[in-house]
């Protein structure tokens, strides 16, 4: 459309662009600030934490302290285990459920659909769930307590079901004639045709596992089994950096404690930041499918 734009519209366009730039600065600056602090010299940082564009002095001491910290390392290990096993199980279970709910010949299809949808609106809540997982199923202090509850997110399952429903049935017919059973149809035909949505699911579930902390707060008692986010909570929000600065001289401890916080944030967030630019378009695809379904 080529047309004359009024002066008012031009002013609006310029203001709009300026507003968007402001939004980006407001979004990014906090992260940049954390980066600059993490590389700063701890002693110079104290009492000088105003707006800054570049590190004050340069030091890697805080990163050394963080990477030598046994809690951070064991946290990384737990989180990686939960992300890998949990996400695999999530995607598998979600795919199976979505597959079942698209089988027209399956007698339980209607019942199971209602059974799944109902859980989106009503649930047992925190305490009964805690009792079931911790006391009845005896999963207390086990990493399974971080993996099994929430194995299927009904919301994600619906996204997947919508996707599966679009696969033409004729593709399955020929396989059936060749004698393939339903399990083979799922793994040999449906899943290979759904790689984009599987990527979305891996990312949705993977990031959720990486960032989750509350279930661990409920179920994990042994410190060595804490996932990364729970360790982070102690350092960032309960101000417990004593373990990390234990090796340093008493005079340095106070200073180091401050910049360690920033280095910890970076160490725990870098994996997400590294994959983010690549996965971003998949996330958007996923939520669009969900949106269309409403």
């Amino acid at each position, binding site marked *: 459309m080529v*047309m004359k734009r009024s002066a008012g519209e031009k002013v609006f366009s310029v203001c709009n662009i300026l507003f*968007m730039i402001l939004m980006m600065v407001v*979004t990014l600056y906090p992260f940049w600030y954390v980066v600059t602090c993490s590389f700063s010299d701890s002693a110079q940082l104290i009492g000088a*934490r105003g707006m800054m564009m570049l590190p004050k002095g340069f030091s890697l001491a805080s990163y050394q302290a963080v990477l030598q910290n046994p809690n951070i390392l064991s946290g990384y290990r737990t989180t990686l285990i939960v992300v890998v096993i949990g996400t695999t199980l999530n995607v598998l279970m979600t795919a199976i459920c979505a597959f079942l709910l698209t089988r027209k010949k399956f007698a339980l299809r209607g019942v199971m659909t209602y059974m799944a949808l109902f859980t989106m609106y009503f649930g047992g809540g925190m305490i009964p769930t805690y*009792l079931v997982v911790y006391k009845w199923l005896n999963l207390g202090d086990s990493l399974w307590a971080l993996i*099994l509850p929430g194995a299927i997110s009904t919301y994600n399952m619906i996204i997947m079901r919508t996707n599966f429903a679009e696969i033409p049935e004729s593709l399955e017919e020929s396989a059936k004639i060749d004698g393939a059973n339903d399990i083979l149809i799922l793994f040999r035909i449906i899943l290979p045709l759904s790689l984009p949505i599987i990527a979305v699911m891996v990312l949705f579930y993977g990031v959720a596992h990486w*960032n989750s902390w509350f279930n661990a707060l409920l179920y994990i008692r042994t410190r060595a089994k804490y996932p990364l986010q729970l360790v982070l909570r102690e350092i960032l929000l309960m101000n417990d950096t004593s373990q990390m600065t234990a090796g340093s001289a008493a005079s340095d401890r106070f200073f180091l404690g401050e910049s360690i916080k920033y280095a910890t944030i970076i160490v*725990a967030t870098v994996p997400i930041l590294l994959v983010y630019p690549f996965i971003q378009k998949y996330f958007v695809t996923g939520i669009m499918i969900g949106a269309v379904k409403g």
Partner: protein
Amino acid sequence: MKATITANNTGTDLRKHFSLTTKVKNELWQNRYLYLLAIPVIAYYVMFCYLPMFGLVIAFKQYELGKGIMESQWVGLKYFQEFFSGIYFGRLMKNTLIISFYSILFGFPAPIIFALLMNELRQRRFKKVVQTVTYLPHFISLVVICGMVVDFLSSDGVLTRMFTIFGGQKTNYVGDTRYFRAIYVISDIWQGIGWGSIIYLAALAGIDQQLYEAAVIDGAGRWKQTLHITLPGILPTIMIMLIMRIGQILSVGYEKIILLYGPGTYEVADVISSYVYRMGIGQSRYSFSAAVGLFQSVVNVILLVAANKTSRRLSGTSLF
């Protein structure tokens, strides 16, 4: 099993063919792989979704770990009465409703306005960059976000220092009862505005472009187009999102509350779900906290259904 099937296939035994058990057996055998696949799925939903729902009966019983649910004594509505007449009921309801109200008032329209403004950007690449940047905070963990909030607003934090330039106090803002709710709502908007706009951008992309062309011929400017085409076009999406939001009025994001609050700010920050957590997990008062949690879920469902009905009557849009 095999015998039944041959009998059916040949059609010699009609009586057997029409009996219910045989039909069930037949169905089970024919779709045996589907039923095999259904076992883990049903097991998951039963164990982790429906067993906790059944576990809600402890809200009406004096549940003791040693006794189990069945043997525990039935006490009816005792724990509900205890909650409603307790000293914290008023405070919890007030905090929950106020924080929810602010979240809806400011947090709900923010992504809509943001999406509308982004929709007006003519430079595709610039728009893409804005999207990529503003979606980012959604993927950062809540622990890190809250850690940054606490640090930036501590008495020596970077935001506190900025405030002092404009005459603000040098104090720990997160621990201050006057600012806690504002910090909660604003940081929520900061983290979610970009991601929340995706769904509205999708709705905006679905509006028929011919409508705009027709409007231009009729002499409508940008503002008129927004008012008469864009907003009605995304109204169904807005209504669906609003219905879902209203269905969560009593469940303020407890994870974030628990990360940010402290005994000093309970007065303004303690909400129903954080109270459930403290009573249930912290003090092992299972029956009492299950009753409080059930009250919260039931009110949420009632609000959801009510909002859905109202929306269907007023705008013709509904969730179910």
